[in-house]
């Protein structure tokens, strides 16, 4: 099983994401933003970072990358796509996911170990978790506050498309403590915290982030 990891100019966590894909049991395939070629991958990860320096708006320029046109097409046909942090922002800008990520409520970049609860374990990227499982993975961003209008929020909640929530104090002002959401089909996930930095206890706060990367194998086997 081949999982593509996209590198945009300014992407930072691409090597971390590739490492997590490999530890999770799949083959990691580098995808370059400028190449309109998905290299026959079965799933795609959009890693964290500051693509295009976050200029204009986070993710606003990356969505026009040649590779993204193929990702959007494939995602709409059901290919599993995981956007982490900046990748989440790119997915929102690409209209694969609703809403937007805005500046943290305290206006500071925040890096800390965050407890989140997996509230939907039926998606391509969360099926390794137990429903309601609490995990600790790093949160690190300056613009991680999930915002959308009331109607969208009601839709996301009503359709079970909130896939993870922050536990404890709201770290960034996200509506309903939302840490991650999915599209209607459940194949496209946007997640603000960083599971790729929690694949072992040596370099991360836990190994609990690995579940996102083993889930995708389960999803493919099914």
């Amino acid at each position, binding site marked *: 099983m081949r999982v593509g990891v996209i590198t945009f100019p300014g992407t930072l*966590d691409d090597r971390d994401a590739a490492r997590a894909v490999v530890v999770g049991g799949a083959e990691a395939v580098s995808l370059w933003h400028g190449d309109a070629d998905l290299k026959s991958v079965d799933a795609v990860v959009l890693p964290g970072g500051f693509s295009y320096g976050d*200029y204009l708006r986070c993710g606003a320029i990356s969505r026009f990358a040649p590779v993204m046109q193929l990702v959007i097409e494939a995602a709409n046909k059901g290919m599993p796509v995981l956007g982490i942090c900046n990748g989440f922002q790119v997915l929102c800008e690409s209209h694969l996911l609703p809403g937007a990520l805005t500046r943290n409520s305290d206006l500071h970049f925040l890096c800390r170990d965050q407890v989140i609860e997996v509230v939907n374990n039926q998606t391509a990227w969360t099926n390794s978790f137990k429903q309601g499982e609490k995990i600790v993975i790093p949160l690190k961003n300056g613009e991680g506050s999930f915002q959308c209008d009331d109607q969208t929020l009601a839709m996301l909640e009503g359709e079970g498309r909130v896939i993870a929530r922050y536990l404890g104090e709201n770290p960034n002002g996200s509506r309903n403590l939302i840490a991650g959401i999915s599209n209607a089909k459940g194949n496209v996930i946007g997640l603000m915290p960083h599971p790729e930095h929690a694949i072992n206890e*040596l*370099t991360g706060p836990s190994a609990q982030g690995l579940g996102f990367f083993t889930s995708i194998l389960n999803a493919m086997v099914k």
Partner: protein
Amino acid sequence: MALDTVAIAQTTPDNSQPFAELGLKPDEYARIKEILGRRPTSSELAMYSVMWSEHCSYKSSKVHLKQFGEKAPKSDALLVGIGENAGVVDVGQGYAVTFKIESHNHPSFVEPYQGAATGVGGIVRDILTMGARPIAVMDPLRFGPADAPDTRRVLPGIVAGVGGYGNCLGLPNIGGEVTFDETYAGNPLVNALCVGVMKHSDIKLAKAAGAGNLVVLYGAKTGGDGIGGVSVLASETFGAGGSTKRPSVQVGDPFVEKVLIECSLEIFAEDLVVGIQDLGGAGLSCATSELASGGSGGMKVQLDKVPLRDPSLSPEEILMSESQERMCAIVEPSKIERFLEICKKWDVTVTVIGEVTDGNHLEITWNGELIVDVPPRTVAHDGPVYNRPLAQPDYINQVNSQTVNVPIPATASEIKAAVLKLAAAPNLADKSWVTSQYDKYVQGNTIQSQPDDSGMIRIDETTNLGVAISTDANANWSYLNPYQGAKLALAEAARNIATAGARPLAVTNCLNFGSPEDPGVMWQFAESVRGLADGCLEMGLPVTGGNVSFYNQTGAVAILPTPVIGVLGVIQDVRTRTPMSFTQAGLDLFLLGETHEDLAGSEWAFLHDQRVGQSPDADLQREMRLIELLLEGNSFFAAAHDLSQGGLSAGLTEMVLRHKVGATVSLENAGVELISETPGRVIVAIDPAHTSRLEGIAIKNSIVITKLGTTGGDALTINDAVISLAELSTAHTSTFPRLFG
């Protein structure tokens, strides 16, 4: 202004030139005329003025810094020493590590965010220039009083700048310091360290060898920012007109630098450069003259080819511009096509601006007219050297002859109050407010970071080889005795990496001082350098490079002498590291090293406005035995934590709060034992079953050990004083949010 060319300079020898405004002394100007045999052109004058500034030429410090070479210990580890962009050491398994620390103090006072950001950017390019992938940054910071209004302006801006730039580059920030003292008001210290890793064969040097090779400028376009920043800002003491200097501070674009890093690493991987230099202080003046004098000796540059952000810039301004995120490479003609391709892939602007020549001329033309023709060595290396007068300042005898007079806590309630007071003191309080603004996880190799004793990075995922780094300074001790202070900082930094189980290997430094024109400051500097050089020789640690920042003073008040010492060490398997605290109850706590009544320069004395007495003497032989003990004990220590500022009180506080596991200790003379800062001490936690092993290695290394108590519970209990972890945590963690929001 009409173009000033070499031809015009030859025919108008008596034209007056603004050398004084550019920071050159009359005798320095006369020397330039002597070198050239004519007056310099205005472009040449610009080049000499920036390159002969204190910041670039080290003219006041050179005579002292040469001790690092003269007293250098024999070391097989040193691959590249002082003089290149950064030193390189062999860490085994074919890996080489480069690390260096630099100051960006003055710009950070004028414009905190951009000053700090470009400080990070500059040191990262120095590391990249050696051929290394940057893998981590650290930032020792010093500010005026924590509650001073200007600190509220400066600190948040500097922290945001360090984070804003470093986070966007994808470099984990793994440590540093945050210290407050009134002498840093108006003179904040922003020191930035970067470490990078490469294979031995990938080391790159700043040399333009091989006539006919091409001079290639790549990265950001050149703008008007930071023109003369180096000479105007770094070499001149602040007067009243600080804010008018704002345009001299460079503006950074971390996105451009991130792309430049990846582009450069791809270029290095294909071995496409002969030599390389980043454009930092003094911009193109520095890069062209250093590359030329490091290589074949000559270079021809067409300055009008430099891509500009501001087309109205004059040639003098282009030569002086300190626009960030630019690199200058020397490339063989056969490899230029591939070089250009890689730049195109990364959308990096790239221009061939000249070629390497034989001989001894750096010739720069502007639209075909010769505007610079100088022997490059005279610009880059033959700057003035001053043996400035130095004299022990009067305060030394005055403060050394006094003794510290502070209340010593005695009763249980006094002990509790003292521990809480130290836990909440700005210099010792929890720094999460700062460090949570830095990404410590990116790259996935961070093993330790703040608040651990040192930062630790894995450099090989298969073998688990790693490096640890700590930066330390104790300016209070350096004020009382700069010679001992430098040695003590060296010992502390080395100890801080040994507690984790890493063996110290090499040293870098950032020497922050007041005006070298003050003989007292110059004496502090000379004594600090002598102490560091002697200390490094004794401990067998080579100095790989460093940085001097003078003129950190406002009016007559100089900062405390602040030599920040960075020590890098190697750990063969990061999985075996000893953490700084314990996670379980029932462990025994031991103090390694003896406690004397060392209150001079202590945090407790500082909190009582006392900066008098005599600093402790550094006993480096004992420090080295302690390090051996730590390395031998690494296999069974459950935790090890260095004691420094705040002594045993701060050390215990940090340990119990780390994993919220308490401790009960009994002390004979609790008051003094808690607040004294006798150097060379470490707390270790061990399983009681290992007691005899600990005693064995303590005897072997002649280190006194004392059992302090045991771990467990939800309080820090010292004799009869019981401090709940909840109240200790509140005291420790509320200071920064209260001060900075």
